[in-house]
C-alpha cells in the first residue's frame, strides 16, 4: 500500500495489491474517470505511509471493494471535502459533489479509519482559486451542468497532491498543514534532483 505521485507532483494516486503477486495503480484521473490499471510509469515516486500494523491490507481491500462496486469509473471530480465523502462501498455520499485526485486518496484512508492529515485548519494556496476555475472550465467542455455546480464550490479548500504525498512521508500521522507542506516541498526537491 503506497501513495504515488507523478513527476510534476500534480497528480496523486495509490499503489495497492490486487492479489499476492500483483500491484496496480488506482487513481481519480479525471471527472468520471476512476482508474485501476497496471503500473505504467505515470507515477514517478511513491511512499508507504506510516499506517498502524495490519491496517495497510485494509486500505487495499477497501480499494478493491471500491473498484468492484463503482462501475465504469463513475466518480465525479469536484472540490468537496474528503471527510466522510465516501460511503461504505466507496461511492460518493449523497450531497458530496466530487473529489480531486488528492482528496480521493485522503477519502480512501479516512473511510477505513485512518487520517493522513489534520483536515482543519488548512491554508489556501495563492493559486488554488485560479486552479479551481481552470478545472471548472475544462470539465464544462463535456459536462456543463456539473461545471455549474463546481463553480458554486469555489473557493474551496484544496489538499494538493504534493501535500498529501508529504503527509505519507511523515513519521506519524495525522500531520498538520505545515508538516505536510514542508515534507511535500522537500520530496519534490528530491524527486526533481533525480531527473
Amino acid at each position, binding site marked *: 500500500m503506497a501513495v504515488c505521485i507523478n513527476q510534476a507532483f500534480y497528480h496523486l494516486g495509490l499503489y495497492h495489491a490486487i*492479489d499476492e503477486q500483483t500491484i496496480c495503480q488506482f487513481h481519480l484521473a479525471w471527472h468520471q474517470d476512476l482508474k485501476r490499471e497496471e503500473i505504467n510509469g505515470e507515477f514517478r515516486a*511513491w*511512499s508507504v505511509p506510516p499506517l498502524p500494523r*495490519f491496517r*495497510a*491490507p*485494509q486500505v487495499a481491500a477497501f480499494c*478493491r471493494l471500491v473498484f468492484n462496486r463503482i462501475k465504469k469509473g463513475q466518480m465525479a471530480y469536484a472540490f468537496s471535502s474528503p471527510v466522510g465523502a465516501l460511503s461504505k462501498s466507496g461511492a460518493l455520499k449523497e450531497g458530496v459533489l466530487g473529489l480531486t485526485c488528492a482528496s480521493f486518496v485522503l477519502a480512501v484512508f479516512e473511510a477505513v479509519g485512518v487520517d493522513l492529515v489534520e483536515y482543519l485548519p488548512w491554508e489556501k494556496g495563492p493559486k488554488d482559486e485560479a486552479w479551481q476555475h481552470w478545472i471548472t472550465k475544462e470539465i464544462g467542455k463535456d459536462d456543463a451542468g456539473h461545471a455549474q455546480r463546481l463553480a458554486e464550490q469555489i473557493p474551496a479548500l484544496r489538499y494538493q497532491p504534493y501535500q498529501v504525498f508529504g503527509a505519507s512521508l511523515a513519521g506519524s500521522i495525522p500531520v498538520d498543514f505545515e508538516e505536510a507542506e514542508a515534507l511535500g516541498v522537500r520530496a519534490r526537491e528530491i524527486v526533481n534532483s533525480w531527473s
Partner: protein
Amino acid sequence: MALTAPRLDVLIGDPSSGGHFGRQQTRQESPSTLEEDVSYDFSWLQHAAELYGGGQKAAALDVVYDRVDRLLSAAEYKQLDVLFSNIFVENLPPELLLALLTVTLPAAGKLVGRLAFYDQVWYSLEQAGESADEILHGLE
C-alpha cells in the same frame, strides 16, 4: 513548526520489487471460527479463514469486505450482530478481525454487537502482545 521524525524515504520505480505487503502473521488458524448454533449462514467467514490460512490473504479480505458490504446494503444489522457475538476471536487472524471492524465502521452506530466485538479484538491483540490501541485507532 516541528517535523516529527520525518521519513524522507521517497521510493521510485516498480513497487512490485519492493516487497511492501505488510507483515507476517504470527497466529495459527484453527478449524472453527464460529459458534455452532448460529442460524445464519456464515460459512463465508470460514471460507475467508481458509483462504487466509492458504496464503491468499487479499482474497480472504475480499470475501469479508464483499459479504459484509452486501449485508450492510441489505440493512441486515441483526445478522451482523449475531455474527459479532458468535465469532471465536482467538481463531481468526488479526487482519480478518480488523476487516470486520473496518468494513462495518460506517454502520457502527447501528450495530449493537460491534462494540463488544471491538473489545474482544482489543483484548485478543493485547494478549498477543500487540499494541491494541495503536492498531485499532479510528475503528471504535
